[in-house]
């Protein structure tokens, strides 16, 4: 009884996988629409019988099934927008080169040593929607002034933790009018994070600017502070 249930489940799973194949032969051809009914039944019961009686046959079928499934997965690897990561040696799979016409939508270059000249490569991606440059040690104000070609598509930008980015570089982000989310938290080179946050929010009205609590470090209101230091100077 228990054996049969297992067998049924196995047949069901095989049938699911079989739908994606197109007419492979040999031991893989199980339940395909090509074979006439009578033979199908005979073959199925024969193999079923063998599998139920011999562990080796069972193991072999299982192994071959896994191989077929992994082939199909490899073919559909990039279909549901998963991240393409480098392997343990830092290399990308050579199959990546087959996908040159597929638009890149998101790049995560966090902790990467990308510099001013390296941005040449990123600026070619005309459909880039999300760029994460967190904690990049060489990204500075000059690099930010290069990002304007991505203005049409870029919706998310993260500069959290970049040690060389200051409020002067943030000023040239106003070209990125499609930006919806900007992360400027934890920027040590920015002199006044609260005031910078306010100015950046004014500069990019459609964008959600994340990272700094604008009330931090304020004693008086932001409007009153400059007037205290103003003094009339006339000849």
């Amino acid at each position, binding site marked *: 009884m228990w054996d049969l249930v297992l067998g049924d489940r196995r047949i069901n799973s095989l049938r699911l996988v079989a739908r994606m194949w197109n007419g492979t032969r040999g031991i893989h051809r199980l339940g395909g629409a090509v074979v006439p009914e009578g033979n199908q039944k005979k073959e199925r019961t024969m193999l079923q019988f063998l599998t139920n009686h011999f562990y080796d046959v069972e193991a072999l079928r299982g192994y071959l099934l896994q191989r077929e499934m992994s082939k199909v997965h490899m073919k559909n690897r990039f279909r549901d927008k998963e991240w393409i990561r480098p392997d343990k040696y830092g290399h990308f799979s050579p199959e990546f080169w087959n996908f040159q016409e597929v638009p890149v939508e998101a790049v995560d270059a966090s902790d990467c040593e990308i510099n001013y000249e390296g941005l040449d490569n990123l600026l070619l991606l005309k459909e880039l929607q999300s760029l994460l440059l967190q904690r990049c040690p060489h990204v500075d*104000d000059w690099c930010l002034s290069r990002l304007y070609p991505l203005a049409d598509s870029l919706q998310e930008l993260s500069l959290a933790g970049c040690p060389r980015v200051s409020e002067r570089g943030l000023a040239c982000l106003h070209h990125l009018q499609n930006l919806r989310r900007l992360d400027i938290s934890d920027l040590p080179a920015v002199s006044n994070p609260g005031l910078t946050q306010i*100015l950046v929010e004014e500069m990019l009205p459609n964008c959600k600017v994340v990272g700094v609590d604008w009330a931090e470090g304020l004693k008086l209101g932001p409007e009153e502070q*400059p007037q205290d230091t103003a*003094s009339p100077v006339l*000849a």
Partner: protein
Amino acid sequence: MIRRVLPHGLGRGLLIRRPGTRRGGFSLDWDGKVSEIKKKIKSILPGTSCDLLPDTSHLPPEHSDVVIVGGGVLGLSVAYWLKKLESRRGGIRVLVVERDHTYSQASTGLSVGGICQQFSLPENIQLSLFSASFLRNINEYLAVTNAPPLDLQFNPSGYLLLASEKDAAAMESNVKVQKQEGAKVCLMSPDQLRNKFPWINTEGVALASYGMENEGWFDPWCLLQGLRQKVESMGVFFCQGEVTRFVSSSQRMLTTDDEMVILKRIHEVHVKMDHSLEYQPVECAIVINAAGAWSAQIAALAGIGKGPPGTLQGTKLPVEPRKRDVYVWHCPQGPGLETPLVADTSGAYFRREGLGSNYLGGRSPTEEEEPDPTNLEVDHDFFQEKVWPHLALRVPAFETLKVQTAWAGYYDYNTFDQNGVVGPHPLVVNMYFATGFSGHGLQQAPGVGRAVAEMILQGSFQTIDLSSFLFNRFYLGEKTQENTTM
């Protein structure tokens, strides 16, 4: 082109240099030892002090291959590139003579500090592009061991030039040239302007050009200090003093058309110390005139311009000081963080300064309004009458503003065509110019310094060809004029 042959004084210098005239790098405390010896002699020998070893540490060395007159950003840039491009380490001895070590009137420190590529001459665009890459990699160029990295405070916000109807065609062709040379500039119509910068009033504006990359403003003091530190570490000598005399020799030669020409060669530079009559004759091979607003005086000392007018001998160096005022004001509702340096159709310009709604700017006066350049007093009435109305017209938010402070500085203004003079003089064979930039010297300094160093060391311009900036054009009457409204 007569090839500049390098110096004769290299070998002799080591033998007859007096102790105390060489500064820097002596770890045996020679000066301390000398003063101890003097004290001992004084105590032993009674009577008048025996001045066997007079203290000459404030004087420049007696021999120097190159003497650079003027220690501003251009002079230091030439010194830097001379030491960088010399083929043997320690091959060239360079002396920089600066009259005022506080730089209180020097154009470099008083500059607004802008850099932009929106010129019409390809040479100017290339110089500015090279300067941008120099500033971007400044910590690789000017690295000194154990010194902290330089922070130029560069604002990459770009320049926005506005043109009226009559200047629009010129602006379009200029932008074409700029794009060809590699500058990232784009043209904007009044509608696009209003879209991008809602605080602008586009009345009277037909076209605008906006620099997207490599343009903005930075701290000129930081560049000056960085250059000074690096150049001292490379072994350049500094002297605080004034150049009062050139001793030169002349040679009569015949040109191919059998015309008599008198060629001069400067042999000695007399450097006078501050507040005293003491001077030191410095024997030199090459003199570089980087004296900025006072270059004409130095040129006159060398005999440039002493001759019948209309001849090459009679052609003076047409560089004179022109005073320009810069005003700083506060305007709480003013343009936001994205504001570039805006240059209006009327010649008024302004930019943001810092995070706190402060702006600075000014306007170049017309020829009739030129202020008196004898002092650096600020004319506040000029702001009220000639600058503020234009600013308020262009940016309505500037109708309410409060002036905080102001200062004035000199342009080394080239009255001939408002562009720099670079390269040797045709008659005074070993004087090289690096001056006359009329307000864009700071942004072109790295490129010009390299060009002059190449001319001296290799005989011709190697990277950027500045032949159209040579002195000859003043005699030949060929103006290398900028076609922009800046």
